[in-house]
C-alpha cells in the first residue's frame, strides 16, 4: 500500500465528524429513543436537536450549523403523509430540496447534507441512517467552511490590477 494512502487512512481514523441532527419530536426523536432502549449500536457522532416538526426548521439554521463548524447535517422527519401536523413535512420537503440544491451549487459536498424520513417505530432504521450518514461525512473529510482555501482567495481578493503604461 502506498504511503499516501496509508496516511489518508490514518487521517480518516482520526477524523471524528461532528454531525448536527435535527430530529422531529414526533418520529425521528422517538426513533432515536427506541434505538437506544433497544440497545442498538450506532456511532456517537451525532448531536441531536429536537424540533417540533421538520416544517418548523428554519433552513437558515442548517447554514448556521455548518458555519459554526458542523461537519455534516442530518434532518429527519415523519414519512410523507404521517406528519403530526398533517402536512408540515410536505412543506419541509420543498424547502430542503431547495436548500440542498443551493448549498451543493455553491460548493458544499452533497454527502454533508442528509435529509430523510424515519418513523417512531423504526429504531433499527434510525441506527442504520446514522451509520450511513457518518460514513458519508467521513468520506468527504473535515468541513473547511463555505470558502475556498484562503490563499487561493487572498491573491485575487482586491481584484486584478490592470497593467498598462498610464504613468
Amino acid at each position, binding site marked *: 500500500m502506498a504511503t499516501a494512502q496509508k496516511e489518508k487512512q490514518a487521517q480518516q481514523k482520526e477524523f471524528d465528524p461532528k454531525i448536527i441532527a435535527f430530529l422531529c419530536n414526533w418520529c425521528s426523536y422517538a426513533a432515536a429513543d427506541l434505538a437506544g432502549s433497544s440497545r442498538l449500536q450506532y456511532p456517537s457522532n451525532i448531536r441531536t436537536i429536537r424540533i417540533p416538526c421538520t416544517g418548523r426548521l428554519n433552513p437558515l439554521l442548517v447554514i448556521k450549523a455548518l458555519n459554526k463548524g458542523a461537519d455534516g447535517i442530518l434532518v429527519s422527519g415523519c414519512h410523507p403523509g404521517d406528519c403530526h401536523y398533517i402536512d408540515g413535512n410536505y412543506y419541509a420537503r420543498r424547502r430542503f430540496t431547495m436548500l440542498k440544491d443551493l448549498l451543493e451549487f455553491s460548493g458544499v459536498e452533497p454527502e454533508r447534507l442528509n435529509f430523510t424520513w424515519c418513523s417512531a417505530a423504526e429504531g433499527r432504521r434510525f441506527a442504520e441512517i446514522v451509520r450511513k450518514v457518518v460514513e458519508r461525512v467521513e468520506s468527504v473529510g473535515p468541513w473547511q467552511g463555505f470558502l475556498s482555501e484562503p490563499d487561493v482567495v487572498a491573491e485575487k481578493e*482586491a481584484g486584478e490590477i*490592470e497593467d498598462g503604461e*498610464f504613468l
Partner: protein
Amino acid sequence: MIKKLTAEELKALLGELRQKFLVIAPFRVKQGRLTKVLYQPVKSEDQLSSIYLKEQPDASPKEYFLPRDDRLGEETAGADCQPEEWSDYPRLFLGVRSCDIAGIELFDDVFTENDFVDPFYQQRRDNSLIIGYSCQEPADNSFCQEVGINPLENENVPLMLYDAGEGFYLKVQDQEVLKRFEMLDMIEELPEVESSELEEIVRENRKNFSENEFSLERGLPFPEKEAFTSVDWEEATASCLGCGVCTFYCPTCFCFKFFWEEIEKNRAWDSCMFSLFTAHASGHNPRETQDQRWRQRLLHKFSYHPTNYQGSPGCVGCGRCVSKCPVNLDIRRVLDRVEKTLAGEGVKGNES
C-alpha cells in the same frame, strides 16, 4: 519651489521612495463586471507604470485612515491598548485630489480634536505623507467648487503634483514635513522651474471648470430648525433604498460602530442610512423612516458640521454618492429642494 520631471523621472523618484514608504497609489482594478480606479499599495517596481492618475478614483483613501474593519486590541488591555504595529510604517499616498485631501482634513478635525484624540487615527495620520494631484477636468457629478474646494490647487499637502501633458510639475509646499520624512534631498535634486510655467497650466485647466449647472446659493451652515421642519424630506428622497453606499464611498463620512469578537474590540464602518444606526434596545427607533435618515445625512454635512467646525462644510462635493447610488438619487437635487424651500420660507442666508 517648483520642480519639473518627466514620467520616467517620476517613476524613478517613486521607486526610490519605495525604500522608505509603502507607496499607495490609484490603479485601474478589475472587479467583477466593473473596472474601478482604487488606491492600492504598490507591490513591485513594475507596477509603477500602471499607476492611473487620469480619473477621479472610485473611492477616497479614507479606508487607509479609518479601516473598514479596525482591530483595536484586546479589551483586557484597557487604557493601554495600542495601535497595531504595522501602522508605524510610513505610507505615501500619491495622487490624492483636492476633494479627498479636504476629506482627510475633516477627519483630522473630528478624530484629533482637543482632548479627544483617537490614537489609532493619529498614528496612521502621522505616518502618512500625501502627494496631492491637480484635477484637469471635473469628475462626473462633482460640485467641489460649490462647497469651497479648489480642484486645481491645495495648500494643505506638502507636495502637489500637476500633470503637464508631457511630464509633471511637482510643487513643494511644506519642506518641514519632507525633512521629517528625510526625503527633501531627493526632491531638491530635481531641476527647478519658474512658477509662471505652472501658473499657465493651472490657468489653462481652470477653463475646464466652467460654470456648474448646480450652485449652492446659501452660505453654510443651513439654519438647522427651519431646514429640519420645513423641507418635505419624504418627497425629496422618496427613491432612496437605504443601502448606505453613499456613506461608504463618501470621503467625509466617518461614523463607526464597535463590536467584540471574543475579547477583541473591533471598530467597523456604520452608516446613518441604516435603520439599525439609531435603533434602541427597547425597539424604539428615533429615525424610523428613510427620509429622516436622509435628513440627518444632509443636515449633518450642511448644518451640524459647519456649525461645529467654523463653517467648513461636511461635504467635499466629489460626486461619488451620486455616481454610486443604485437609483441615482442626486444630493444636488435634494440640496436644491432644501434651498428653494428655505428661500420660500424667508430664512436669511448666513453670509460667509
